[in-house]
């Protein structure tokens, strides 16, 4: 043993050095467009056009941000309203559903469960036409409900699967003793199950937030009045009005930063839960 340790250890050391270089490179390549955006958002339009792409952080002006804020402020506010309502509806429904799948016995359970799993295979893009026609006939066209309800529904398959995996792990004796004490199922869910599975519920909410934040096409299709646009559609509206080259360039980049920052902060703060929830969830699904 003692004889053999020398060589492999040196090799491990080299391997570690190589992975550190490779890891740094991967992170740098992933972040370079963001660094580029941040740098340009602090430059004036002329400076971006003439300064060349390699001169990062040569100028620091905040005027772009003032201008960009006025451009995207409304769509940010709209997104918060739409997302909060959609998440409350979607996460509540998914929690109830997942609890039923995880802890209760009922007839046809496996069939209904398959109905959820197979939905993961139907991409939302393929239903935009019928959903659009449906919103028109429901008179929900050009309203926020046309966003909220499909977002809440679209999240169900993934959230129900994700939550179920975690709800199943709660020891049955805990729930049984509450039932013996006369607690109703929704009380058990609210008082016992939810507090124990807070990380995955948070992860589910963040996943919905990312989807709603990043969705461009559906608001564009189902809303007519651009003052109701959520952030991705609103951002594109702002960018195409200004054009990415020209004197407005700086504020376009500032608008990118403004629309990315809240999500980076939200997920950055809850990173540990989020990553743990996603990796454990991926294993359980």
């Amino acid at each position, binding site marked *: 043993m003692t004889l053999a340790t020398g060589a492999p250890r040196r090799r491990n050391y080299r*391997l570690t050095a190589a*992975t550190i270089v490779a*890891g740094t490179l*991967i992170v740098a390549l*992933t*972040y370079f*467009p*963001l660094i580029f955006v941040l740098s340009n958002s602090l430059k004036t339009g002329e400076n971006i*056009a003439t300064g*060349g*792409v390699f001169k990062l952080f040569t100028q620091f002006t905040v005027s772009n941000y003032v201008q960009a804020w006025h451009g995207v402020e409304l769509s940010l506010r709209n997104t918060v309203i739409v997302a909060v309502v959609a998440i409350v509806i*979607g996460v*509540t*429904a998914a929690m109830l*559903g997942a609890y*039923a*799948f995880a802890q*209760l016995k009922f007839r046809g359970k496996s069939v*209904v469960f398959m*109905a959820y799993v197979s*939905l993961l*295979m*139907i991409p*939302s*893009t*393929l*239903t*935009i*036409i*019928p959903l*659009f*026609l*449906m919103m028109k006939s429901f008179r929900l066209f050009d309203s926020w409900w046309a966003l909220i*309800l499909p977002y809440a*529904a*679209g999240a*169900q*398959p993934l959230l*129900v699967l994700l939550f179920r995996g975690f709800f199943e792990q709660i020891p049955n004796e805990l729930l049984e003793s509450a*039932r013996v004490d*006369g607690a109703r*199922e929704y009380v058990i869910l609210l008082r016992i199950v939810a507090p124990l599975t807070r990380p995955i519920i948070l992860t589910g909410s963040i996943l919905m937030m*990312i989807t709603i934040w990043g969705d*461009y*096409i559906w608001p564009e*299709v189902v809303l007519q009045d651009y003052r109701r646009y959520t*952030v991705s559609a609103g*951002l*594109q509206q702002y960018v195409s009005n200004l054009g*990415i080259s020209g004197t407005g360039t700086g504020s376009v980049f500032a608008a*990118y930063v403004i*629309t990315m920052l809240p*999500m*980076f902060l*939200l*997920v950055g703060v809850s990173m540990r839960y989020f*990553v743990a929830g*996603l*990796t454990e969830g*991926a294993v359980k699904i």
Partner: protein
Amino acid sequence: MTRDGKLVTLNPAEASDSLVAPQTHELQPPTSAWSRFKRMVHSQSKSVLLLPSLLLIGLFSYYPALRSLIGGFYHWNGFSPPTWAGLSQFKQYFTSSMIRPEARNLLLLVIGSILITLVSQFVAAEVVSHLPKRPSTVAKYLLTLPIVLPPIVLIDVWAYLLNPTDGLINQLAGLVGLPQPNWLTNNHLALVSILLIGFPWVSNLGFLIFLGGIQNLPKEIMEASRIDGVGWLARVFHVDIPMLMPQFRIVVVLSGVYAVQNFIPILLLTNGGPGNETMVPALDMYQSAFQDSNYGYGMAIGTALFVAMLIFTLIAMRLLRPRT
């Protein structure tokens, strides 16, 4: 079931006593029709918990999917009532001049993005898993964070980077004396440019799936291969990859399905051009419906695409089936 039924007959005060004196309740079982009815409702009421979720997916997922399947068989411009079209719209699509370029582009995009995704995300996961503990966690968090990026920002920024005159890519190419093409308007490069968006393609769920898989590999096998002096490359190919087949399967299906439906970069950057060089079925579907008000035809394309995707998923699942 009987336990639930019994609970109905207890009021909360009695219920809390039931632990102390359970026998008293055994003596008064509910016998009347009314209480039997209440018991039935209550035992059913548990599955009522599923109702909100079922209502949502029924109304906003299954109903539109069904309507889309039926819609392909009708002509409809959105104003006058739909008229029966039979298979004519499917025939029209499969004999149109678009079908060849669309099928070719779709195939290239799906294969390209699956390969890109598998290689980049698996390599990144291997690298991160081999890092020392702390840097590994930091790298994992840093590479997960950009998942939150709105796709629209990524698309816009890449359009800017691919800009032929002062975009970063061409300035770099100029420095080392490579040609500086018009990426998005060049016949041969437009599709490649679409695939290039998001380079190095690491920040995605697939990365976390692979990383989770690698970190959960049985410790004994890792230990055994280390003692046997298996090199890291041999270990990756002979241990990690065969043992991570379930993960590969999920990532192949996820990225394939995503590539089929994701027409937003094409819509915003080339709108199918130059010519039909980047045209894909999903964009054709979108344009038919929302630019030409040809909803029936759009839904016919959507149905064809759905069937194609189903076949792809089944094949992928079969090919990557774990061998037992």
